[in-house]
């Protein structure tokens, strides 16, 4: 973190990949680990140790539910958003396989949804992959047009992890309800909490995936919110114990769940001022980068969270660009989940960017510890790298 990092340590601008655990969150988590704390199995209702852990979990469940406009009993804790996405897709597909085998999603979804969708396709389900407009948005009528009598699920993300574009989930859900009332709506909101408002019931959706570690909580914990509005049913992925309404068997990880609840409570309490602060930082970042010239913003800026800015830079090669800045700033090219691969970002390609521009892209994601001086330094470093690489290339 910039204000804590010793000189020479890169400025962290990759909060969309993960965030550091808030110190208060870590303190609450540590209270649930050792012999002096709430280490009991929350499923052990026969003694005080189990009851104490169970109470902590109930409190965390309420915090998570409150943050996303859900009821506590709708929260199913999972190991993270990837498992939640898998439970949503496979759970619906398996349970409703005799009703229909068609699923609608988008080409710009996270791999947790796309890879699950590909696997269902391999097993015989029919998939429709929507292509967003050049700004990264999917129109409600575009979704409605893709629906069929055998559509069982529409799975779309709220905030895109690479470009930060926000989908109008309420309008999309309304279009789905009108055109194909039998279809359930799942939303991956892993990037949303702490960046914009999330409201399960106001949106009128059925399933919502969440992750703690994008919101200053621990890694390894997330949730699938299962709305009781329409009594959606899921076939579980795991068996053994029947925890979480038989949807996610396994001993509940008290410290992780407590961490998620605490983290969500903290981001909820600071959301509005944090949005204003980060929006100012992003505006300065955009201004500084655009002044370099040949810098193209990816995604519709009018419908994006302030925390994420993706740009493609003309006249430079992507790997060299990252190599030139990485000792000073920690940013991402494409999503962290796919950066091991050499392929250009599939999200940017879906938006119509060429392979070269998709490769020459940087994702800046700002967070709680980002300061104005970090933005000034980032702009300075990118400018110097771009000018140098363009000079070498004769661009």
């Amino acid at each position: 973190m910039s204000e804590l990092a010793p000189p020479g340590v890169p400025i962290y601008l990759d909060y969309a990949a993960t965030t550091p655990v808030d110190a208060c969150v870590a303190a609450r988590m540590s209270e649930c680990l050792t012999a002096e704390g709430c280490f009991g199995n929350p499923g052990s209702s026969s003694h005080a140790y189990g009851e104490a852990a169970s109470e902590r979990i109930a409190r965390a469940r309420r915090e998570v539910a409150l943050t996303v406009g859900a009821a506590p009993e709708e929260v199913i804790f999972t190991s993270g958003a990837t498992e939640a996405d898998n439970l949503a897709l496979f759970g619906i597909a398996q349970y409703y396989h005799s009703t229909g085998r068609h699923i609608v999603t988008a080409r710009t979804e996270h791999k947790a949804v796309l890879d699950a969708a590909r696997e269902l396709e391999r097993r015989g389900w029919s998939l429709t992959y929507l292509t967003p407009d050049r700004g990264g948005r999917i129109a409600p009528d575009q979704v409605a047009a893709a629906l069929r009598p055998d559509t069982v699920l529409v799975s779309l993300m709220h905030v895109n992890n690479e470009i930060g574009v926000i989908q109008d989930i309420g309008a999309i859900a309304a279009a789905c309800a009108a055109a194909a009332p039998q279809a359930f709506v799942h939303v991956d909101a892993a990037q949303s909490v702490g960046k914009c408002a999330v409201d399960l019931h106001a949106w009128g959706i059925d399933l919502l995936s969440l992750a703690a570690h994008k919101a200053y909580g621990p890694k390894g914990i997330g949730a699938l919110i299962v709305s009781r509005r329409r009594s959606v049913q899921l076939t579980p992925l795991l068996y053994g114990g029947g925890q979480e309404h038989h949807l996610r068997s396994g001993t509940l990880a008290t410290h992780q769940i407590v961490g998620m609840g605490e983290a969500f409570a903290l981001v909820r309490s600071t959301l509005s001022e944090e949005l204003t602060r980060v929006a100012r930082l992003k505006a300065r970042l955009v201004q500084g980068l655009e002044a370099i010239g040949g810098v193209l913003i990816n995604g519709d800026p009018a419908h994006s969270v302030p925390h994420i800015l993706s740009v493609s830079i003309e006249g430079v090669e992507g790997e060299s660009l990252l190599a030139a800045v990485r000792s000073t700033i920690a940013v991402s090219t494409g999503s962290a989940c796919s950066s091991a691969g050499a392929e250009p970002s599939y999200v940017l390609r879906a938006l119509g960017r060429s392979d070269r521009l998709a490769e020459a892209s940087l994702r800046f994601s700002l967070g709680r510890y980002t300061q104005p001086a970090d933005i000034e330094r980032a702009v300075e470093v990118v400018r110097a790298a771009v000018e140098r690489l363009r000079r070498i290339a004769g661009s």
Partner: protein
Amino acid sequence: MSYSALTRHYFEAASAAGVLEGARCARGAAGAREEGTWVQFDLELDPSGARIERARFRAFGCPHVIAVASFLAEQAPGRPLEERWPESVAALRERFEVPVEKLGRLLIVEDAWTAAARAALARPKTH
């Protein structure tokens, strides 16, 4: 992607980046920017036309491409003009610890060098 110290050095310094123009200069290039790798060498010969006096490069490519092109241009002054660089692509790959999947990019660097050397060898003799 991690890089060797030698790669980082030549990528960061790139001290031979640029162009040369004049009667004793020849140019060769290979690759294409839209394909991700493009390299150009300019060679300036000594008055006899037998030796390289200076070399400069331009490169659009990954750090390994820039580093190897920079290395070749820096090492060139004083060498006899020959069509091929005396060190093989395999040796350069080993020297710079270039991943095997990038071998094609090093071949583009080699092609650019060869094109420049051929252009220099084809120059009309002035003496």
